[in-house]
């Protein structure tokens, strides 16, 4: 590829400072993978610093379920912990959960926007965008001042997949933006991976269709790392953590020691929340006792209470 400096390149672009900069196609800073797609953006507006580490995209529905958000958050965090850069679109739902997880993991993360750098969309993600730009980058090909235009989003999606080795789809309805990204990823020769959902969840239909079409099913971060030779270093780092996590998982899978708490825990599910009333009815137990046990399970980290309904913690 062409490594010569671009004549129009602003002088500060190469210095890696975290103010706004412009990276043009042909610049040494221009992401190499992105040049391989058939219509790479001529220039990228960058807030922060584009990381050089390998990237994986996580995309999904804006109206995600709590389960989908947990999955995206966890994968984002786990990938970030082993040094993989998570790319997503700064949207509500799955995107935001993936970014937040990635920030927790400690590696930079990249948000690709469809609007100008000065027009953060959705507006409530202003702080999130700030946090992302601190260590990673918020990028866009749109001119400053570009408002959120519907036509811009599908075009933006080609950059998300173009930057990444592969795209993980978490919850996508039929005919959704996330499916467009998955299709583009396939056209660009990127791998598509999917987090499965419940067969009753309409947001899982699109994802399950992708799995039927040959996308890889993802449960853990290892499933992602195994897929890419480029991620062998990350995989080695992950190996060390796997042991600890397996131990933790075994513990979480086997439930609490206390038989009274175990009896409650066994009725719970990882995905479908259950209400206190249902547990009382199923166990034929006084609600006071159910509530006491739920607190004990919650405080020892076996379950998550959310709005009066509980699920197992994993």
């Amino acid at each position, binding site marked *: 590829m062409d490594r010569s400096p671009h004549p129009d390149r602003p002088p500060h672009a190469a210095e890696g400072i975290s103010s706004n900069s412009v990276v043009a196609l042909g610049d040494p800073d221009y992401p190499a993978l992105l040049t391989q797609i058939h219509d790479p953006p001529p220039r990228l507006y960058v807030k922060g610093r584009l990381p050089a580490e390998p990237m994986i995209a996580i995309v999904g529905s804006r*109206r995600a*379920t709590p389960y989908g958000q947990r999955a995206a958050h966890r994968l984002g965090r786990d990938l970030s912990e082993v040094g993989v850069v998570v790319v997503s679109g700064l949207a509500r*739902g799955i995107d935001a959960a993936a970014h937040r997880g990635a920030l927790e993991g400690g590696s930079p993360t990249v948000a690709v926007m469809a609007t100008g750098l000065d027009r953060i969309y959705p507006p409530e993600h202003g702080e999130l965008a700030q946090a992302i730009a601190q260590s990673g980058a918020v990028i866009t090909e749109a001119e400053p001042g570009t408002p959120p235009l519907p036509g811009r989003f599908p075009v933006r999606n080609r950059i998300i997949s173009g930057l990444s080795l592969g795209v993980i789809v978490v919850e996508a309805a039929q005919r959704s933006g996330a499916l467009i990204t998955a299709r583009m990823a396939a056209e660009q020769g990127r791998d598509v991976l999917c987090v499965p959902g419940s067969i009753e969840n309409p947001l899982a239909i699109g994802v399950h269709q992708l799995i039927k079409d040959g996308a890889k099913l993802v449960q853990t971060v290892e499933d992602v790392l195994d897929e890419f030779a480029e991620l062998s270093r990350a995989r080695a780092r992950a190996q060390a953590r796997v042991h600890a996590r397996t131990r933790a998982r075994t513990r979480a899978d086997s439930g609490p020691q206390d038989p009274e708490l175990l009896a409650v825990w066994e009725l719970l599910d990882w995905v479908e929340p259950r*209400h206190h009333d249902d547990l*009382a*009815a199923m166990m034929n137990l006084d609600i006071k006792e159910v509530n006491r*046990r739920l*607190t004990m399970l919650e405080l020892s*980290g076996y379950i998550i209470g*959310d709005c009066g309904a509980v699920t197992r913690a994993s």
Partner: protein
Amino acid sequence: MLARALSGTVFGLDGVRVEVEADIADGLPGFHIVGLGDRALQEARERVKIAINNSGFEFPGRKVTINLAPAQLPKEGSGFDLAMAAAIVNAAQDRGLPTDAAWLGELALDGAVRPIRGTLPIIAHLDRLGIRRFYVPAGNVAEAKIATTAPVIGVTHFRQLKVHWDEGATLDESPMVEPMQAVPPTQHVDLAEIFGQPHAKRALEVAAAGAHHLLLVGPPGAGKTLLARALPGILPPLSQREAVEVTSIASCVGMLPAGGGLLEVAPFRAPHHTVSAAALVGGGLASPRPGEITRAHRGVLFMDEITEFRRDALESLRQPLEEGRLAVARSRGHAVLPGRFILVAAANPCPCGFAGDPRRICQCTPLDRQRYHARLSGPIRDRIDLQVLVPRQPAGELLRSTPVAESSAAVRERVLRARQRQRERRPQGPLNGALTGPQLRKEPLAAAGQALLEAAAERLQLSGRAIHRVLRVARTIADLDESSGIEQGHIAEALQYRESG
């Protein structure tokens, strides 16, 4: 010729003595009322004149002047009619009007005496001033007798007084009349009629036992209103003093049925979410009239769809939630109105109502939800100790033959014992729901309970106020459990009624 008759009115909820003076003088025939009367009082001229003529007396064809003293106090309403008529006929011809008697009542054109608002607080006040004889509308006798032990004479018609004065006929002391309308059928729901929902029912029991405010979160149709209506039925009966307060308020706003006596059941008020702040707080130009907050005093204020209430209406709850009373300032005076109630608020989990429902997908964005929750401001949330999720009942569940649930009477027994324990601990002090931080710190907390609370504060990131809420609820749970100290199990249960994200 001059005559005086005593009467009274209410300002806020307090009785005020009003002296009605009638003067008949030579001059152009006419009838004047002075002394800051409102429109209804000016119209009294026609009522009183015609009623006197229709009762066998003759309205004097000279210059008649009525003065209402104290003259600077704004007066409203029709309760002075009887006193004015009595003063006028005695100014025309001295019939020996007793000086220690008071007169209350509105006159109909034919001379009949109609019930008025506020009889109870007016009589209570005049009784304290040493008045020893009360002439009141027959329909107000029952409430008047709550306030005084002096003779209460129920007047049905002004003509009775003509017969009394002219022919020496004795007036029956306090003839009782049948209530014109029965006390409205109780809207209270028995807990046994509500299927399932043990978590929410337990929260109701705790709310009743410790007078805690409660937030029910659930999708439309989950039964939040039904649960709220069950709360008055498990509250302790009103004490004599509380019953007088409640009856006084009902009397002032005209909610006491004619002939009705002491109200002994806790009130239940459910203002619609379009209510204005003035209607909640109380309004009125001359004298502040009690609003919904005061009408719910000693009972339950149910605010369905609390996030849909107007902002200023919600903020008006802050003072009563903090202090149990309400300072109302109007252009012509201030009043402090009572407002100590249990707030039962109900809300959907999110604008579309489906968040947390495993069968439906919530269509709300996180921002929508955030805005929705922000409508309930922090100071009000801080006062709501209990929050529960009320799940939608599947139709099949509702139709299934139901196991008999515990009745309100059984739950009420436990509530009564828990209240008794609180009274023994603090004969004068607040109930558990109003305990402050320093008071909570003095409560005996088991070491294991302390450890659990600390672990919870750490793991669930509880704020200081949230910890106080848990402690207040745990104190009530311990009282329901007839335990003098707060044990670990009480803390554990209390934590499940905390506010969730």
